């Protein structure tokens, strides 16, 4: 294998890892505040990608051709709309089931994801077919000894890293972030300290969903295509990443995301069987990891309560 080809694989792996990490951060945030898995997260992501597409189509209709304006509008509107959907799911589906068995919450969010997915397929014009996603970023490439490093990929990576770092700073350095951490640590005590529990939960769901919208747009820009079912696999992979890393831990989510992408890349490149088995390999490793470390690499500290 040439160095250039290796570089291409690594670049692809890093891009995937960034997307998975963004999704996993969402899962881990939701788990932090409510101790639940928001399984429709992947489909919220697909929703974000389709909002981005719709905003772009509307801008083209209106005659706005300046790419920078298009880009900003697409990102801002899709983040806002997706944050709203995430908060609505939390308000009307997740919060009413607070205190119900965790199986019910898992199922209700899984089914909510199906509702979103099917709604995209049925109600977006031509939604049952993959839709072309426009290239909004400059596609200039730099040739590094046969390996083509593209500017748009670099921008996406930098933006993703900034978003994750920004989320981390927000959680650790601001008053609202402090409120989120307080709710995550102990809901009752947080309430007695005057924190508006419901507002914090809704905000957290909005924040996580906005990150997912960015991951969805990133996926669309990277592959030049979005598909109504794209969220299912991305959601499960993001969930797997968050779990491998250990739920409720931001670093764990990022590590898990990149680890899963690394597994897929290794499965595609370095193993003796056909590269089509890369997902089989990655999921098999996840299952084995769960057998060895049942609560993730950075395990949950809580012991069993009797």
């Amino acid at each position, binding site marked *: 294998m040439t160095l250039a080809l290796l570089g291409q694989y690594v670049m692809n792996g890093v891009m995937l890892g960034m997307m998975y990490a963004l999704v996993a951060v969402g899962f881990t945030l939701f*788990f932090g505040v409510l101790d639940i898995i928001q399984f429709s997260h992947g489909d919220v992501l697909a929703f974000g990608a389709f909002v981005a597409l719709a905003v772009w189509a509307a801008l083209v209709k209106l005659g706005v051709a300046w790419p920078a304006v298009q880009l900003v509008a697409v990102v801002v509107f899709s983040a806002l709309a997706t944050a709203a959907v995430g908060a609505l799911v939390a308000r009307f589906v997740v919060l009413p089931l607070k205190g119900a068995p965790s199986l*019910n919450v*898992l*199922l209700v969010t*899984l089914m909510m994801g199906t509702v979103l997915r099917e709604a995209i397929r049925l109600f977006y014009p031509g939604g049952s077919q993959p839709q072309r996603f426009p290239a909004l970023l400059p596609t200039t490439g730099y040739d590094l000894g046969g390996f083509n490093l593209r500017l748009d990929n670099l921008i996406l990576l930098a933006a993703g890293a900034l978003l994750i770092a920004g989320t981390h700073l927000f959680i650790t350095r601001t008053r609202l972030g402090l409120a989120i951490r307080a709710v995550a640590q102990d809901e009752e005590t947080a309430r007695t300290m005057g924190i508006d529990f419901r507002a914090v939960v809704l905000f957290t769901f909005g924040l996580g969903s906005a990150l997912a919208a960015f991951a969805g747009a990133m996926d669309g820009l990277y592959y030049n295509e979005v598909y109504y079912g794209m969220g299912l696999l991305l959601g499960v992979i993001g969930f*797997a990443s968050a779990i491998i890393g250990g*739920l409720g831990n931001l670093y764990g989510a990022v590590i898990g995301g990149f680890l899963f992408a690394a597994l897929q890349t290794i499965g595609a490149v370095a193993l003796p069987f056909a590269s089509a088995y890369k997902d089989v390999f990655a*999921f098999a490793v996840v299952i084995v990891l769960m057998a060895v470390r049942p609560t993730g690499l950075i395990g949950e500290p809580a012991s*069993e309560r009797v």
Partner: protein
Amino acid sequence: MTRLRGALGAAAVAALCALYAWAFLRAESQSALALLVLAGVAAGAVATRTRLLEKLPPAPERLTQAFALLAVAGLCIALHEDDFSLLLVARVLIVVLACLGLHIQLGYAGVLNFAGASFFGVGGYTAAVLTRSTGLPHLLVLLAGGAMAALVGTLIVVPVLRTRGHYAALVTIAFALLFRTFLEVNDSLGGPQGLKLKEIRIGPWRFNDPVELGPFSGSFYLNYLALLLLLLALGWILVQRVERSWIGIDLDAVRLDETAASTFGIDVARWKTVAFTLGNFLAGVAGAASAHMVGFIAPNNYSFGESLVLVSILLLGGVGNAWGVALAAAIVVILPEKLQVLQEYRFLLYAGMVVLILIFRPVGLLPRRMRRLVDTA
């Protein structure tokens, strides 16, 4: 005297259900179907409000089962020329059999399995491979399908046992996705195009020939229905025996509180493994029978979405009640096929329905009754 009244009540309920199913399957016009749906919903609402089922004099469980069996058999005979309706009934029976597997896992032991369709698929693919390459008798092939599903299940039993809650859900979800991808990329199993299967033959009895018994003649589906009814009756007896025995009590204890169960000397890992394996076995048998009847299998039939449908049937019926499972399976299989408006929106409606049920009636249509360890009557 009360026994007689109980028996009469059970017979009446079974006959009414069969009559309703017959009318529903035979109805052609969409407006008639809509009326029947409304009537069914109204009857269900009234029965729930007045607690009719609880007020009926208790009938012996065996008698109720026998009446249900007779009702389904009678329904099949009444429909003997109608291929499409018989196919629907057969699919309901298959789905009930597969869901009984999940019912043992989730309803009794509390083991959540999001890969039900995968184990169903293991059964189907095993049947396809065995009938193509060996001359194994077809009844044994059905058993082999179940055994293979149970065996494949043991591959993930260790992570299933070691993980809890969300972590456990990940294991079966990852397995479901892995299995589907594996089928799609594996050329020796037909890849995305899938495989074809032959009919079932038992001795001189060819299942794809029309039924001719003296003056009576009927669709070839009656062959499969007879076999499926037999399989389902056996599966049902198994489930019922498990529930009524001390094994069922142990499983209940494991589901309700693992820590408490283990302090009373119940081996949690052992019973979870037993329930998981037994459940996968039933799903595998159902998958093998289904593959033979349809004559064709492809990875698309065994996707994660199908597994979700199986879990929603359990939830819709009421987790832990086999009768609820049967009712929910009939609704979920037949309703979208008959009401064409629903066809396109099927998954949207299932999902929306489950969301609403979980929010407003989390116990399901027919919730499980409290176990009565001492006969107070």
